[in-house]
Each structure stands twice: as C-alpha cells, then as structure tokens.
C-alpha cells in the first residue's frame, strides 16, 4: 500500500513536471517575440554558433554550416567515385582507376566533418522543444516536419527519374519474346543478330515461365522472396504506426510504454533486415530449402554484364540476347530502394536503442513520426517497384 502511495506521488510529480515543460513550450511557441527575445536571438551570446552546440532555450537555430559542408562533401565523393570506377573502352566491364581514390577519401572526410558539426549542434536538443516554421506557406507547422517533406520531395524526383528511365527503355526496346516468336526477326522485318539488345524483364526470371520450381503451385519459388518482402514492408509500416500510437499514450506507465515502443520499433527493424537479407538471397545467393528451389538472378545470368544470354529454348529455338539494358534498370531501381531500406535500418537501430532507454514519451515522440514518414515513403516506392519490376 505504501509502495502504491509512493508510486502515485512519483507519478504526480512526473505529471507536474511534464505539464510545466508543456506550458513553457506552448508559451515559447505562441508568445510574440518581445524586444528582449529579439535581442537574445540575434545579438548576444545566446545565439548558437554555426559550428557548435546551440542554446535551445532561446529559440530554434537558424545558422549552421553543416548542410553546405556536407553538400560539398557529397559532390567531391561522387565525382571521385564516378572517376574511380569507370567503364572500359568496350563498355562491357568496370575498370578500377586508383588516381581518384584520394578524392573519394577527401569527400568522405568532408561529409563526416559536416555530420560532426550537425551532431554537435543537435546534441543539446532534449526533444521537448519543437520549433515551428515561420515562413509562408508553412506557418506554425513543425519545422522538422516541413524539412522531412521537402526531403521526401527530392526523393520523389530521384525515384521518378528511375521509373522514367525504366518506362522509356521498356517501351523503346523490343521484347525478346516477340523477336523469338518471329523467328529471330524484329517486328519491322529486320533480322536479329546475336548480341543485339532486346528486353527480357526481370519478371521473366522471377515470376515468369523461366521459373522452374512451383512448390506452392500458384507461385513460382523465385517470386517467394519478393512476395514476402512486400508483406514485410507493409507490416513494418504498420508497426511504425503502432510505435507512434503507443508513444503518445498517456494511460500507460512509462516503463510499460517504453517497452512496447521498443518492441514495435524492434519488430520494424527485424522486418527491414529480413527485407534486405531476402533481397541479397534473390540477387546473389538463391535458395534450396526442402522442396523450395530458386536460383539467384546472378546464377540465372541476369546481370548487367551479360551480352549473350541464351533466351528461349523451350521449343528448341533460341536467340542470344544482350541483357545489359534490362538488368541495369532493374538493379539500379531496386538497388536504390534497397539503399533506402539500409538507411532506414541504421536509423531504426538508433531509435530502438533510444526506446529501450525510455526516451520516447507523449511529449517527445515526433522523431518516430518523422522517421515513419520516411519509412512509409520507402514502402510507397516498393508498392510501385514490386508490380513494375517483379510482376510485369
């Protein structure tokens, strides 16, 4: 009984503290800036350094060199990377050019220094102060939320360019099946020469007639990893939603709430990891488990270097086709998506640890919401990638 009373007193003290913080935040966000505030923000030593930790008690920071430094770093890194791994004269293999390796290292160093500055400036942020956007048209919307959406806009452009490339090449390149059906002749009547480029979609290897084993009768075994991945991503989107809902719940004890949030984020992490593992299995490893058998795309010959793939053969007739165009669009699009999943895994690892330490509560759960936006976007892209590249 005594323990209950002590617990209640603790809870009351915690509620009072939370309410006081909430009051301070509300007052800070809604009160018009006084002359003193203005003075504080712009003229005296409360103003955070563009290089170091910011004093969050006196408003949102609006000065940082981190983004500019990181942009330069990425420019140097990508230029060096593209110059280090170049195509040979025959354009059929990658050649290593060590002259630009130092540029890659310099680029990575500059990126890391930008990250270090960013980390130092954000280190002082306790999660209880959510700065609001002041400029049109985003007035009074959380500034980090606006930032996340602007980031997602740029991501939409990246994936749209990949889809545009895919559609362009898919529509502009004649199907190998059509050429084979026409007895090695293009639809315009010209003869097909071995090594000519035509289109063999990835779905031919994953969900098409090429698939050998059909253990589940309705689905070829090669489609199983992709199908599991699709469900895994959808479930992981839902577990992020549940993590956010749970973090906002005020009817749970803090320890119970933290445990549940950690479990939901942990489940998301497990599903994301499963996604990448199955992706690697599908690309490089393949599997043979009991009656299930699926060769990897690589062992099937679906690679960006394959210029003489033996296509057909069911009726004895075949053509040797160049797969590079089709394979390159597939691996770049799905690989870019996989890289985003990997970035999500890194973020989720940190967030699961943070949840384990009990850092998420109803006042401080926006990080889960903003990460959730990113994660739902990754799911959204897969919703388009899966049918476009795996099924069609």
């Amino acid at each position, binding site marked *: 009984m005594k323990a209950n009373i002590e617990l209640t007193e603790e809870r009351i003290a915690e509620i009072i503290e939370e309410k006081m913080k909430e009051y301070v935040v509300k007052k800070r966000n809604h009160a018009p800036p006084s002359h003193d505030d203005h003075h504080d923000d712009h003229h005296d030593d409360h103003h955070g350094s563009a290089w170091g930790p910011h004093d969050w008690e006196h408003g949102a920071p609006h000065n940082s060199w981190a983004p500019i430094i990181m942009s330069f770093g990425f420019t140097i890194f990508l230029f060096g990377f593209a110059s280090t791994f170049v195509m040979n004269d025959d354009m059929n293999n990658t050649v290593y050019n060590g002259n630009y390796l130092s540029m890659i290292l310099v680029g990575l160093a500059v990126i890391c220094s930008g990250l270090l500055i960013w980390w130092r400036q954000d280190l002082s942020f306790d999660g209880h102060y959510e700065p609001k956007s002041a400029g049109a048209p985003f007035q009074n919307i959380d500034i980090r939320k606006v930032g996340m959406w602007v980031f997602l806009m740029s991501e939409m452009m990246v994936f*749209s360019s990949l889809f*545009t490339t895919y559609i362009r090449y898919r529509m*502009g390149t004649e199907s190998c099946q059509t050429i084979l059906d026409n007895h090695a002749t293009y639809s315009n009547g010209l003869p097909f020469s071995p090594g000519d480029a035509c289109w063999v979609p990835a779905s031919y290897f994953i*969900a098409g007639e090429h698939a050998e084993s059909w253990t589940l009768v309705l689905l070829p075994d090669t489609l199983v990893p992709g199908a599991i991945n*699709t*469900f895994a991503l*959808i479930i992981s*989107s*839902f577990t992020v939603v549940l993590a956010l809902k749970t973090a906002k719940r005020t009817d749970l004890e803090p320890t119970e709430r933290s445990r549940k949030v950690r479990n939901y984020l942990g489940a998301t992490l497990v599903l994301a990891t499963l996604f990448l593992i199955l992706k690697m299995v599908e690309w490089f490893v393949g599997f043979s488990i009991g009656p299930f058998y699926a060769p990897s795309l690589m062992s099937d010959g679906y690679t960006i270097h394959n210029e003489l793939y033996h296509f057909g053969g069911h009726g004895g007739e075949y053509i040797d086709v160049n797969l590079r165009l089709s394979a390159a669009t597939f691996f770049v699009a799905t690989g870019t998506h996989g890289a985003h999943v990997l970035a999500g895994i890194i973020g989720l690892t940190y967030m699961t640890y943070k949840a384990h330490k009990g850092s998420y509560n109803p006042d401080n759960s926006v990080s889960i919401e903003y990460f959730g936006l990113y994660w*739902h976007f990754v799911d959204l892209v897969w919703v388009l990638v899966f049918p476009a590249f795996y099924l069609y």
Partner: protein
Amino acid sequence: MGHTIFGKDAYNMNFAMLMILTAVEVGAVASSVNGDISEQMVIFILVSIGVVKFLGIAFIFMHLRMEPDSNILTLTALFPSFFILMMFIFIAITVPGAPDSLPAWCRF
C-alpha cells in the same frame, strides 16, 4: 490519432486493405502465368491496385488527410508532380531514337 473508417481504427483498416490488395496482386500475376487471365487484365489490375495502395499509404499512414496541416503538406508532396510529368512526357514516352536527334551538347 483517433481517426476511424467505418467506425474502425483507420490505421488497422488501412493495414488490412494493403495486405489483402497485395495478396490480390500476387494472385493476379500467378493467374496470368497459369494462363487464366490475359496480360492486359493483369496490367489493369496491377495499376489499379498500385494506385489504391499508394493513396492508402499516403493519405492514412503519412497523414496527408485527416490532420490540420494535411492540405499544405499534400500540396508540398505534389509540388514535384510538374517535373515528374515533364519527365514522363518528354522522356518516358518518347519514340525510340528520339535522343539521337538532340544536339551534341545534350548528349554524352
């Protein structure tokens, strides 16, 4: 966070819908491979379901509906549409060989 669809939690409903539609997608392709439905029908099913799933995730999971700031954030999300449309019209659905007629400075 307490939004509902047909009296049920919106997130749960959306999750159930996404799972069912994905199963339909996979089933449609399986039927196509088995020769039960035509390729055109499969494309129609995949595009239709893709659009519905896309909207379900964007509107409900990403809060582009039902929140006070949903409208402006939806407009923000739609902002790249113009550029995406340009890419689709002038690149994705151009005729084969169209880039060959571009001036040299446009090409590698």
